[in-house]
């Protein structure tokens, strides 16, 4: 053993505050089983607890999703809001709430035809697309658009779609309390009853084994490869060390936009790729993007901190 190690151990071992700490052995099987029972793993990321934000009374029931045969915890709305109905194919759930109907995904892996059947059955012209996404975006709504129409995103999570007769139709997002880090996402969408405009909604679904992510989330968001880390204004060398610990590699380095321009608006990152050997370890990381392959990220860097 190295003499420094030996001397340090002699110096410090007696002061270990946890040297007498032992967990209660009888509780270990219970804790382990609870973790297994209560934690959704990647193949089951569709299992999600629904937001009770807008509902005053929450009663947990269990619904079985057709095909996937997953137990899903559903929060039932009280009677005065309207009853929740599963779509005919049980790929979607609709909750009527006055002039709006809330739509949520029940089975992100369902065949898209099943979604269309559910929407058509309710007289809605909605094209629901599912894209392979990184874990933090699975089961979340990540885009709303209307073919050949202007969609304005509001800061409150809602959207305005300009109809052909110049009237604005308002569609609202349903807030996702768990969030997606720096990315925008919603738990579902509230569509006006009787909407006839064609709407395209994109939800994220877990990528299948070997499948690349079409859309990537904030790599530090929950469930992602760098979950819980703060990268901004750490040096490149520090971040690369953190990445190695998480078995993650850098897909691309991008030059950060020059100050004082805020954010990345108007800055085309694809035109500012830097070769990795040209990025000194003393530079600073401004931002990280998820890579399209698993365990990869792209870093936005500059010689100065952000």
């Amino acid at each position, binding site marked *: 053993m*190295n003499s*420094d*190690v030996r*001397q*340090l*151990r002699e*110096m*410090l*071992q007696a*002061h*270990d*505050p*946890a*040297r*007498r*700490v*032992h*967990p209660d052995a009888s509780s*270990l*099987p219970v*804790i*382990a*089983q609870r*973790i*297994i029972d*209560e*934690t*959704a*793993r*990647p193949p089951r990321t569709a299992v999600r607890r629904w937001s009770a934000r807008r509902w005053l009374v929450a009663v947990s029931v269990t619904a079985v999703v057709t095909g996937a045969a997953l137990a899903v915890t559903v929060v039932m709305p009280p009677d005065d809001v309207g009853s929740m109905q599963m779509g005919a194919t049980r790929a979607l759930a609709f909750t009527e709430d006055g002039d709006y109907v809330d739509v949520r995904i029940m089975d992100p892996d369902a065949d898209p035809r099943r979604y269309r059947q559910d929407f058509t059955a309710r007289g809605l012209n909605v094209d629901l697309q599912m894209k392979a996404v990184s874990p933090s975006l699975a089961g979340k709504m990540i885009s709303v658009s209307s073919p050949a129409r202007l969609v304005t995103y509001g800061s409150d999570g809602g959207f305005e779609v300009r109809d052909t007769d110049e009237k604005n139709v308002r569609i609202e997002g349903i807030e996702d309390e768990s969030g997606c880090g720096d990315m925008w996402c919603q738990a579902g969408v509230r569509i006006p009853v009787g909407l006839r405009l064609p709407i395209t909604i994109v939800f994220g679904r877990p990528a299948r084994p070997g499948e690349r992510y079409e859309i990537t989330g904030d790599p530090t968001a929950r*469930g992602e490869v760098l*979950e*819980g*880390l*703060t990268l901004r204004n750490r040096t490149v060398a520090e971040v690369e*060390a*953190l990445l*190695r*610990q*998480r*078995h993650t590699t850098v897909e691309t380095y991008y030059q950060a936009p020059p100050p004082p321009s805020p954010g990345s608006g108007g800055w085309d990152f694809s035109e500012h790729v830097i070769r990795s050997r040209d990025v000194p370890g003393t530079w600073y990381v401004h931002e990280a993007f998820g890579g399209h392959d698993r*365990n990869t990220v792209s870093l936005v860097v500059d010689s100065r901190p952000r």
Partner: protein
Amino acid sequence: MHDEADFTRMFHEHYESVLRYAWRRVGPDDAPDIAAETFRIAWEKYGRLPRDEPLPWLYVTARNLMSNLLRKEERRDGLTGLLLGDTGPRAGEEDHSVAVATRHTVLAALNRLSDGDRELVLLVCWEGLDLRQAAKIVGCSRPAATMRLHRARKRLQRLLTEDSRPVADPRPSYRRGTA
């Protein structure tokens, strides 16, 4: 089902180490939560876990969780905060107040090391890891870890010998004995 059995086995094998790891850094109140959350993430990402040697991965995950916790709560007491959980004498201690004061001096000296050096020292001394494992967790090469430990050992010895009072402690609450 294989995964569940394997995970349960890993949990039993390493839970105590992770609990102690957290205990040494955030104290008894938060350590069980950090340990449980670490294993929750481990189960969530079990497919990607290095199963032949999961402990370094578990430590890194626990450390990130603790960093978030400390940042969120703006806790700046560092290791000396651990003394708040020190409620009674340990076996073999003749004078508990002297022992507490000495421990406080040691913890305060450790606090004066850089974050990376301190983590390396603790991993080697308290977690009992060898240099290769500790270097892997801290994210440096083994030669770099050797050099950093040498530097840390010299600095700690200097801090502990040149100042007999608790280092960097504005509170006069720990009276040193005459021993």
